[in-house]
């Protein structure tokens, strides 16, 4: 997995709270294979981006020129709530979005972002609101994220500290793969299974 260290890129403000994963990618696209050639980016925010005839809705933020190369989303409460679909993260990552900043995230979606090398940065709503307002005032402006120091620098140069669990920070910084991390513990796992299934043989 690609390590995440520092990122400076265009950020898009999403004012709406509770952006669920059905919005990020409608269910009907989850049947698509994801390959190196054909990613999930065409389906990102599909029903918000396109009208019934498949034409771009000009008022949707990612359809506006300054935000076409968005690499960071600044959202409100409960970003990514709802379905466990990892396709929501695939769509963002394949589009080029590598971080989401929000006061809170849906639990499963938060884990899914980590698993795909995308940073879910937790920042107080008051600060998210300031960032969103600045991004709207200056369309296409950038935000800098430094994972090592856990800081976000807004368009006006002001810096905020964001929250992330130390273990997830380490995974993202090093681009670590969870299966590898688990298999290092194989002797402990096997010892556990022996005890566990001796007590509950019907579960084995």
């Amino acid at each position, binding site marked *: 997995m690609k390590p995440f260290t520092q990122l400076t890129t265009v950020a898009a403000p999403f004012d709406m709270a509770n952006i669920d994963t059905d919005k990020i990618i409608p269910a009907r696209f989850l049947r698509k294979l994801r390959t190196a050639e054909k990613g999930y980016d065409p389906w990102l925010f599909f029903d918000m981006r396109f009208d019934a005839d498949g034409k771009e809705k000009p008022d949707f933020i990612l359809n506006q020129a300054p935000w076409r190369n968005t690499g960071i989303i600044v959202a409100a409460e409960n970003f990514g*709530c709802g379905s466990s679909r*990892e396709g929501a993260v695939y769509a963002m990552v394949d589009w080029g979005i590598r971080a989401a900043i929000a006061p809170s995230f849906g639990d499963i*979606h938060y884990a899914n972002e980590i698993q795909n090398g995308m940073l879910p940065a937790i920042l107080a709503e008051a600060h998210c609101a300031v960032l969103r307002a600045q991004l709207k005032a200056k369309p296409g402006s950038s935000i800098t994220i430094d994972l090592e120091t856990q800081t976000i620098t807004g368009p006006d140069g002001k810096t905020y500290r964001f929250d992330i669990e130390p273990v997830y920070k380490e995974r993202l910084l090093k681009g670590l793969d969870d299966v590898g991390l688990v298999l290092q513990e194989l002797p402990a796992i096997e010892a556990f299974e022996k005890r566990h299934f001796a007590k509950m043989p019907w579960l084995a």
Partner: protein
Amino acid sequence: MPQTLFEKIWSQHVIVDKGTETLLYIDRNLIHEGAFHAFGALAKEGRKVRKPRQSLATADHYVPTRDREKGLANVVDADAREMIRLFDVNGAEHGIRCFGMNDPQQGIVHVIGPETGFTQPGITLTCGDSHTSTHGALGAYAFGVGASQLKQALATQCLWQKKPKTLRITVDGKLGAGVTGKDVILAIIAKIGTAGGTGHVIEYAGSVFRAMPMEGRLTVCNMSIEAGARSGMIAPDDVTYQYLAGREYAPKGAQWDAALAMWRALPTDDGATFDREVSLDGNAIEPTLTWGTTPEEALPVSAVVPDPASFSDANRRAHAESALRYMDLKPGTQLTDIKIDRVFIGTCTNGRIDDLRAAAAVLKGRKVTVQGWVSPGSTLVKREAEAEGLHRIFEEAGLEWRASGCSGCAAMNGDSVPAGMRSASTSNRNFEGRQGKGARTHLMSPAMVAAAAITGRVTDVRTLTGGR
């Protein structure tokens, strides 16, 4: 030290505790067609499923609910056909037991887990699906994961986890006539919000849940994720044991006795503490339904559509405004004046035999005025319902009786609600576009959906059943 139900299960599954995170053993995995991403990743990394016997798979999300006997050739959408085909291939290749599209035990993943006894008290269980919280109704710690974590669970039977916080929701009192598990959970979500349980495991406690049949408990735990919680749990008791006894995967003979002794030690000890506590008065809960586009936008059937201006929270106000636009509703409208165009009965929330009985009891001898269909939660539920003659009640009322699958819940198999139409649905999500692009969903109990089917508008089911 006194412990909660969750803490007991958690501590019994810890392999390595690093303080910052814990390697947790996963007893069982459930799988559906959507797992093709996880299987693809396993293949790419050259990994195998470590313990195939600890997994069980079923085809549910993409299977057609009409003309099922015609098999794969009948699946029109090429991508869906490929997924269903891959499902069988992956299961066979990894040695996992699979209930394929035409298997007599096929059903929705969260229905077949409890139904086969694969789900049991005290176990840890994952599935690549957010409604895995359902299985907590039997006193399991069950949570949904994404494709990457599903891949890990299959490859290792373990997951690195951070210990969640605990939230106890106590509902005491006695539910009135026509008030079900669905109404209770909608009332809870309306109270605590869709982020109310984020980062927490919910334990549902109190006399209302003790008196609730297993089906109702499954409905309640199912929608825990709609309150932001990855899992919901209810302590096992005699209702649980009676439900499980004799089921295929349930322990038998001396093992049953041993299991029972362990299960009886699981309920939360007196004096155990939770990170948060919430309580509701069960006597006050009415039949409840959603008016907006998130499950927290729910109200008792006697209420009116709220005015967004009445919300003090700016985010909720903004959401309500956009929800009313999408739903095409005006503040102040009596909920019972909302016209309904389609009805759907089924899903992992409300597709079990008790749910079908409740809907059939309302529909018996009556005719519906809107189109709709019933898709049982599993093929076994379908058989059971047919043995009781429920299918005839639905058909004589004018509803379609279909095969089992997720169907109109997320419309992945094409069973969608046309744009602009208003649906009364027993499912769990009323997000924009969930039942099809532009579809407007009102979530409610099976009996309430049946009532709406008869009158063509949102209806207090008690007015049709004489308050029984």
